[in-house]
């Protein structure tokens, strides 16, 4: 795996598809703390609460003062390569198929020496930038890139991010404002093709008309409440989808007590929960099987969630609940897709500035901003992406005191 990956090519039908295997996935509980940091794109290491000493690899107590409380803090992400090697022999199946593989021992500015994957251009003695990434097994690893001009086509880094470049992307609902911007953002990121679904053919959306004429975009009917439609589309393009973005959404105001309408709640569940389940059932298996199908194989499943999936906003109470159901399902999918090296990316967005959030006070998110953040997050390999002040605040408050936010969240 040296030298940049070439452009995507059509598949040679006579060759056996490379079966997905994943890097060694056995990690300690402490090490999974790194995954939480990697998921959010942070470069954080364990620091002693008492003496501040920075630790790596993860552990449970301070090696300097033996204090038992270490906390994750963002630390300087610079470093220098102390030594490097190119591994040309590996017993592990994942690496065997990807040799040669460059590794380095990096003296980090934060303190510890760190064994890291080396991107091209990271030679001994050079300054590098360290980042936590999720590997194909979904576990955190450290990768070093050149301080400047890191290439998106670096084959080792591509294994750790979900770069849309050269890949084919399904945007489940391409006709919403967000969907349209997602399509454009993926095209701008270099996606090879975007499949855009639309759920209501009679809906005279100008977005649909524009999509139909957009180069690089194919438009397909796709109603996630319709098992048959999902199955048929999966049969048509399922083996070409390398990134799937489920942005189907059904926003309605209302809580549990004062709006006894199961049509709305059923529709919420049909779209958010069963819709995701239908997509998972028909698109998931082939994506999982194509997780190692060359440098442009299936790589990520993106779920667009509301930040209120994390904590219920009673003014959109049943909506929040159906989002939470889907969020839980995404964790199941994450475990199942991991076998193929396909990662589940959950995006938590605050309210969009669209027709379904008319009564929601600002800040509201421009769909273009959300789309850009999603694509940027995929390029960086993030697993949890909080977009917007509302989502970020919810994440922070939840981490701090879930009871507080549970009691006080309102529009």
């Amino acid at each position, binding site marked *: 795996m040296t030298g940049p990956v070439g452009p995507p090519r059509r598949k040679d039908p006579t060759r056996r598809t490379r079966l997905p295997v994943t890097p060694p996935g056995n990690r300690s509980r402490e090490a999974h703390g790194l995954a939480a940091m990697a998921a959010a794109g942070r470069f954080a290491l364990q620091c002693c609460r008492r003496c501040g000493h920075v630790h790596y690899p993860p552990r449970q107590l301070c090696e300097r003062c033996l204090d038992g409380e270490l906390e994750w803090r963002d630390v300087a992400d610079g470093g220098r390569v102390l030594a490097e090697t190119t591994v040309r022999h590996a017993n592990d199946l994942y690496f065997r198929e990807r040799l040669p593989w460059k590794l380095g021992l990096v003296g980090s500015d934060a303190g510890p020496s760190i064994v890291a994957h080396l991107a091209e251009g990271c030679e001994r003695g050079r300054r590098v930038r360290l980042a936590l990434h999720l590997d194909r097994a979904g576990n955190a690893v450290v990768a070093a890139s050149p301080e400047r001009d890191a290439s998106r086509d670096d084959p080792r880094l591509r294994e750790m991010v979900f770069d849309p470049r050269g890949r084919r992307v399904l945007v489940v609902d391409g006709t919403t404002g967000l969907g349209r911007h997602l399509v454009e953002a993926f095209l701008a990121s270099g996606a090879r093709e975007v499949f855009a679904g639309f759920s*209501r*053919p*009679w*809906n*005279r959306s100008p977005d649909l008309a524009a999509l139909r004429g957009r180069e690089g975009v194919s438009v397909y009917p796709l*109603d996630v*409440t*319709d*098992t*048959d*439609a999902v199955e048929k589309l999966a049969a048509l393009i399922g083996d070409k989808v390398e990134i799937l973005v489920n942005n189907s959404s059904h926003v309605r105001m209302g809580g549990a007590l004062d709006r006894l*309408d199961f*049509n*709305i709640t*059923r*529709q919420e569940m049909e779209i958010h929960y069963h819709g995701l389940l239908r997509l998972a059932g028909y698109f998931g298996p082939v994506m999982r099987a194509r997780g190692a199908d060359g440098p442009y194989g299936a790589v990520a499943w993106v779920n667009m969630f509301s930040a209120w999936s994390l904590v219920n906003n009673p003014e959109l109470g049943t909506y929040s609940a159906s989002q939470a159901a889907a969020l839980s399902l995404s964790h199941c999918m994450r475990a199942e897709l991991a076998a193929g090296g396909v990662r589940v990316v959950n995006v938590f967005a605050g309210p969009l500035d669209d027709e379904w959030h008319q009564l929601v006070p600002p800040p509201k998110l421009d769909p273009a901003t959300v789309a850009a953040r999603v694509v940027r997050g995929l390029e960086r390999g993030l697993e949890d992406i909080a977009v917007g002040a509302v989502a970020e605040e919810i994440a922070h408050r939840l981490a701090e005191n879930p009871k507080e936010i549970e009691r006080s969240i309102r529009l």
Partner: protein
Amino acid sequence: MDSRTGEAGILARLLEGLLSGRIRIVDLTVTLDQRTPTIVLPPELGQTWPFRIEEISRYDRRGPATYWNNFSCGEHTGTHFDAPVHWISGRDLPDNTTDTIPPAKFLATAAVIDCSRDARADPDYLLTVDRVEEWEGIHGPIPPRSWLLMRTDWSLRTDPEAFLNMGDEGANTPGPHPDLIPWLISERDVIGFGSEAVGTDAGQAPHFPIPFPCHHHMHGNNRFGLPGLCNLDQLPPHGTLLITAPLKIRQGSGSPLRALALVEEQADD
């Protein structure tokens, strides 16, 4: 056979007609599937469920000997029956729900007026009293307690998008003129109005002085609606017997049904 005399009765003669082919059955029903269009309303209103179907088992581990499905849909999906209670104007009438309508009302004759050329020329075509009177001048009057079926060939639009034909100001589909329905009730005593579009009213009917006049007047007078029909081109102007029994849903406002037409072939001799 007459149960007392043993002579061939009406039903036997009907059966003989069916077996001999002198009476033809025309199926006026569209096939229900997931693409069956349902009426498009402003999204903030309550919505009808589209037709959805999930397999329970198909001779597999879920049921080795059995194939069957669960399905769900709104009462007003596909070819369906509108009961008077469907509209607020018919809310307080007696026997106005699918379970209380006297079953005799599910058999009735039908007059079929061909508006296919008009609808082809103008998707917003409205059937007027004048047009009906002109038709009666040729074919004879609509008999009392008969259905009036408006043939537009709209059912040939199998693509949901073309079928619903949504525009900026709503759907553009043919239907009855606002003046026609009161006239049909008071002057012709029809049992109901049937059409090939997604509803009995025209696509632009929400904008009429009395919105949805067909629903308003028909149901307000305890009459019925029969939208989503097909194969009306196979029916003669007069002489059709319609069988239109909805599912017996308690307090039901309507239901998908199998609409069958019995047509007597003209004797060649």
